[in-house]
């Protein structure tokens, strides 16, 4: 469904991505792991053109484009097939929860208001916010805000959901509610690419795990293979370190 090849991206002299490939099939839950600064987030942002890659190609269903020279209409098309969940939620502060979710429907896709409201209500119900429709973001907890963020993303019925460290800005006791929602979406067959540091979550839901370091994909495989029998030294070092941290926290 989605295949991206040879993505390069540099910020000034700092080369963040040095040729990253990814292939996504419908229903895949791809988890991207890696140490900070490995380029995971940048890569995810390139997929949605929030960052313009310096090099690389994208095949998305019938769309074929160079990442660098993609036209505005192609970018809009790709963005309409994807949705992004941000680390800092990035909710529209001047809109209520339900308006946040409706915005992508009524404004970007010209869905009639009543229909949009119904879709938005369904999306908010799905993330467990049926009693928070008319709350402004400033009136919601971090976990609730991120769930609105997820509702906003799923309401536009994207082919691929992109999650950029969706729980790393949250207090530990709020992480669970967001992960629960994401697991639910995974079970329902949504296609997702997730950048995260939640190892047990990755182990549980990922159909494929990609380990990135230094701007390249070091290793990829099933969750079981990566977590129990990593082939690369760097992967096992990383896992050893984070899993130990994880045990320590527990």
């Amino acid at each position, binding site marked *: 469904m989605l295949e991206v090849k040879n993505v390069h991206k540099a910020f000034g002299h700092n080369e963040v991505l040095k040729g990253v490939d990814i292939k996504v099939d419908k229903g895949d839950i791809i988890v991207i792991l890696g140490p900070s600064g490995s380029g995971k987030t940048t890569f995810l942002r390139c997929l*949605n053109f*929030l960052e313009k890659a310096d090099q690389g190609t994208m095949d998305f269903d019938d769309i074929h484009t160079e990442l660098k020279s993609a036209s505005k209409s192609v970018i*809009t098309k790709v*963005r*309409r097939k*994807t*949705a*992004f969940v*941000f680390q*800092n939620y*990035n*909710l*529209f*502060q*001047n*809109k*209520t929860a339900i308006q946040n979710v409706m*915005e*992508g429907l009524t*404004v*970007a*896709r010209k869905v009639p208001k009543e229909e949009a409201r119904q879709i938005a209500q369904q999306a908010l119900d799905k993330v467990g916010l049926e009693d928070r429709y*008319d*709350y*402004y*973001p*400033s*009136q919601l907890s971090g976990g609730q805000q991120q769930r609105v*963020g997820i509702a*906003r*993303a799923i309401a*536009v019925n994207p082919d691929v959901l992109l999650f950029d460290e969706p729980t790393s800005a949250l207090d530990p006791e709020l992480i669970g509610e967001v992960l629960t929602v994401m697991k639910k979406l995974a079970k329902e067959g949504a296609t997702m690419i997730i950048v995260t540091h939640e190892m047990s979550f990755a182990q549980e839901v990922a159909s494929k795990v990609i380990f990135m370091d230094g701007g390249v994909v070091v290793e990829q495989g099933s969750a079981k293979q990566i977590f129990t029998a990593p082939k690369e030294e760097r992967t096992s070092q990383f896992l050893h370190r984070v899993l130990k941290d994880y045990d320590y926290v527990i």
Partner: protein
Amino acid sequence: MKLDTKFMLETFIDVLGGVPVTLKITIVTLLVSVPAGFMMALSRAGNGRIGRRIIIAYVSLIRGTPVVLQILFLYSLLPTLLNYLIKEILGLEYNIFRLDPILYAYSVFILNTTAVLSEVFRSALSTVNQGQMEAALSIGMTKTQAYIRIIVPQALVAALPNICNTTVSLLKSTSLAFMMTVRDITAIAKIDASFGYNYLEAYLVIFFAYILLCSLVQGVFYLTEHSVSSYRREKAIRKAPVMQNG
């Protein structure tokens, strides 16, 4: 020393006649300067290098000179220039010196306020985090849609206290319009005072007139701010029946 209260009362009534002029200058200026200043702030945030340089030059020119000087300059230069333009170049028979002086007042204050407001809006725009723009783009909105529906409304609310400031100082500086023979509050008071040298009384009267007007402006802004910034407060939480933590 004794204040001539009868004169003060008469002057006060006279001065009331100048209030519409003062307000007119303030309001017309704002009506032009708010959108103009906003467009400037936006284009300064945009990509055009030349446009940005011109705006920076304009803003520092205006901010770097006293309003009084701008008035003197414009009021002595512009009529002569226009007269030359009309008579010599266009060959029309129109006496530019009969033009209502309030038009010069508009010009000076618009030039001034636009420069100030463009800075106000520039800082207000930067208070809206870039992430909201990205979020809007990621759900398929265009940049323009994102500006109109998400960024600008929040920037306007953030700018309100500073717009209030600008409005109050604009209202006060309209008192300089008497230099351009506009009969505003200050001009009327000075004229009244000049008959019997009751300057102190006249100034006291307009002292209070300006305090009243400025308080009024601040009140209006306070109410507006209160009604449009509801999303920033956590009011509804207290109203709605919500479970407490734990």
